[in-house]
């Protein structure tokens, strides 16, 4: 009896609340997928500050921290289970290719589960420009389109770009020197800087990190760290330079004949670590091999490769199915050149099903280093090849640590010479006073953003997304959470990628009045509780 009474009065309350609010429905509470606070405090707090800013605008936000990597990665990349996700995309050399952070991420055709358009974003102008730049090999010409593409993304706001992380790593100057260090988005890990690392003690340069190699099989690898070390052992035709432009590696010259034909002259007189010469046969074999056995990481990059033909003993011709400008950096710059005399018989000789299962314990490559030994979970030792054209300075010894906290301490103590592990701000401050420690500030080409799921109802409206960009306390986030170790960008191609970055775009500032004005113009209203309501 009494229960029924209460229920009825609730119904009445609900009924009277309805007409009091003037316009449309409440903007739904945003489901903000983020990182677990305990382990990824920086990322979690960033999302927390963003949510705080949006709440001031009358938008309800619910943070949903999920354990990383599982299930968070699945919710992020496969299920798209979020209205907003705290997207942290790490920088990597191949991501300097301007297609990656623009078209690949925001092209409507890339919205399938597991592909890069995790926010199921679709915009006609973005799609058109994105597809157009793919067919232009000339860098200057392509750049014009890439700049326009960034402007279109800036207008459509598929995500709110927060900042690029600056990480600090360090070396012990008593033990090691890096003459001619090049600022690269991957800092000390860049192959160009590894090559220059010179031991002052006539021994291997000892580099500390927490990650161990998963595999030295180039066909099986799929983590960034695996690829870095593989690129020490195996050469590629092209290597991405620290400035974002391709540099010749095993290639002597590269000519674009037409949109679908590229010819590469291969460096002659070079040998594999077992003394056998590197030939155009090996080059053709490698591309065919990666394609034939469907090496998972490379599948995407070899999809447009129709054939590889040997023209003469110096030259190889690549024929594509359609013009694809990123081919140079993404394919020629990533596929490793394997010795044909080793890999062509691996499957038959060892009785394995496919070369991915090959252990490749003593890898034979033509790269600047060869693997001396690998003690799993402990050490990896690379011996330099004095006869290599990239001129490696010293042997490299990677030391694997169980936890990141002790890597900095090990550097200070002299147990290692280089800390590849980014140092936390308090350690950076402490190290700045140490006479024998040199700090390297590395600006990543990756970035943090609040990525919107446009496939869901809440953030479909462009005006709302535009307004949200002005309700984020950027400076506070950078100063209070990241200790100043972050830089802002208005574009997903961040300033360190200078050639491609569009510097003319307006950098949104925290300005609630402006945000409210945009919403008012678009017909949004606020109810008496200050909550945002959609246009009617």
């Amino acid at each position, binding site marked *: 009896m009494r229960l029924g009474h209460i229920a009825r009065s609730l119904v009445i309350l609900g009924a009277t609340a309805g007409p009091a609010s003037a316009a449309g429905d409440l903007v739904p509470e945003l489901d903000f997928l983020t990182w677990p606070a305990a382990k990824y405090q920086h990322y979690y707090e960033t999302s927390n500050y963003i949510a705080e800013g949006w709440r001031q605008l009358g938008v309800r936000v619910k943070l949903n921290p999920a354990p990383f990597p599982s*299930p968070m990665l699945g919710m992020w990349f*496969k299920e798209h289970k979020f209205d907003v996700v705290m997207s942290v995309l790490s920088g990597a050399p191949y991501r300097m290719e301007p297609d990656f952070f623009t078209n690949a991420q925001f092209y409507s055709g890339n919205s399938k589960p597991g592909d890069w358009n995790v926010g199921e974003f679709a915009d006609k102008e973005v799609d058109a420009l994105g597809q157009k730049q793919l067919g232009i090999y000339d860098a200057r010409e392509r750049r014009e389109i890439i700049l326009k593409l960034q402007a279109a993304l800036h207008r459509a706001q598929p995500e709110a770009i927060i900042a690029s992380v600056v990480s600090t790593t360090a070396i012990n100057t008593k033990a090691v020197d890096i003459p001619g260090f090049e600022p690269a988005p991957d800092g000390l890990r860049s192959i160009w800087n590894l090559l220059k690392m010179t031991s002052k003690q006539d021994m291997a340069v000892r580099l500390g990190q927490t990650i161990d190699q998963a595999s030295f099989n180039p066909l099986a690898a799929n983590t960034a760290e695996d690829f870095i070390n593989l690129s020490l052992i195996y050469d590629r035709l092209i290597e991405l330079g620290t400035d974002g432009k391709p540099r010749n590696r095993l290639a002597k010259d590269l000519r674009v004949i037409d949109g679908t034909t590229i010819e590469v002259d291969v460096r002659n007189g070079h040998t594999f670590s077992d003394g056998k010469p590197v030939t155009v046969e090996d080059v053709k074999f490698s591309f065919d091999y990666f394609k034939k056995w469907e090496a998972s*990481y490379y599948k995407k990059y070899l999809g447009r490769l129709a054939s590889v033909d040997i023209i003469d003993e110096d030259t190889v011709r690549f024929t594509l199915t359609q013009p694809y400008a990123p081919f140079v950096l993404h394919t020629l710059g990533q596929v490793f050149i394997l010795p044909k005399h080793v890999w062509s018989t691996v499957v038959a000789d060892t009785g394995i099903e496919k070369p991915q299962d090959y252990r490749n314990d003593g890898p034979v490559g033509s790269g600047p280093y060869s693997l001396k030994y690998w003690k799993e979970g402990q050490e990896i030792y690379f011996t330099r090849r004095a006869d290599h054209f990239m001129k490696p300075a010293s042997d490299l010894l990677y030391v694997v640590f169980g936890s990141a906290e002790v890597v900095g*301490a090990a550097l200070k103590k002299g147990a290692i010479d280089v800390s590849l592990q980014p140092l936390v701000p308090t350690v950076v401050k402490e190290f700045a006073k140490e006479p024998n420690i040199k700090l390297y500030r590395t600006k990543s080409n990756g970035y943090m953003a609040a990525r919107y799921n446009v496939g869901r109802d809440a953030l479909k409206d462009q005006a709302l997304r535009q307004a949200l960009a002005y309700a984020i306390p950027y400076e506070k986030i950078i100063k209070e959470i990241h200790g100043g170790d972050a830089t802002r960008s208005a574009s997903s191609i961040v300033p360190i990628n200078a050639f491609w970055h569009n510097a003319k775009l307006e950098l949104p500032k925290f300005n609630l009045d402006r945000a409210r004005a945009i919403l008012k113009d678009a017909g949004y209203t606020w109810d008496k509780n200050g909550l945002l309501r959609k246009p009617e």
Partner: protein
Amino acid sequence: MKSFVARRLWHMCLTLFVMITLMFFLFRMLPGDPTATVISPALYPKAQEALKAQFGLDRPLWEQYFVYLKNLASFDFGISFHTRRPVADAIEGRLLNTVLLILPSMFLAYVAGALLGTIVAWRRGSKFETALVFAATSLQSTPVFWLGMLAILLFSIRLDLFPIGHIVTPGLFPDNSLKMYVSADFLHHLALPFLVNALYQFCFPFLLMRSTMLSTIGEDYIELARMKGLKESRIIFGHAMRNSLLPLATTMPMILGWAVAGSVVIETVFSWPGLGLLMVEAVSRSDYPMVQATFLLIAVLTVAGTFIADLLYGLLDPRIVYE
């Protein structure tokens, strides 16, 4: 006795089977797509499908389960998702490192715990007892990673007496050879994690011994021994301690599995390349075959330990009869 052993063995198998099943499904019941971490979401969708098929993750769960059981029956623990190498190889390479760290420190902890527990019980009410009991209870409630970090900070960094971690100085030994394990360098690296683990493991046997001793001291036969005019030391060590050792001896095998599981923390802090560190890495990567195999190992150790403890009871205490 024979039928008892047979029955217990049968129970052991049942327990292990339930554990295996639980572990298999529990890890897969975690929210989200369990393949998300195994297969990089950054991969091309078609490539992801190919990888799934390769690991058998595209087949229904029950089918995966039966394949797993079948392989297990022939001691095939599968291929690691992460390294694509046999799980058994990885465990084999790490097991010795853990055993060398855990067993000696456990042994020290139990010997010291038993002796000090006895003395403290005998000296009940003394300042020595108060101090030691206070220290042991605080130690026991201290997270071992914190203890380890503190030890590194003090002994490795401040005093520079020990290395910061690892099993040997990097660069000295190209493989895990016998030469490495018998080197002074290895012992130097072992010292700190060994002491920290021994200190941590010490609390349980110490407190257990003390409380058992306290009840033993009140027994009539101790009174009788005194009346016979036996020497105090004879009474303590010959009568009271011997009889109080029973619970300690029987908990020891059970603790073994727990100690191996506990190596997770100590190995992570000290970059000790053992089973514990392998487990941490495997769990964080959702490397199911590796996780299942390492957890199974701990389960087997614990179950086998309990079984041994049951048998020990009968051997040590003639009053216990198996029917």
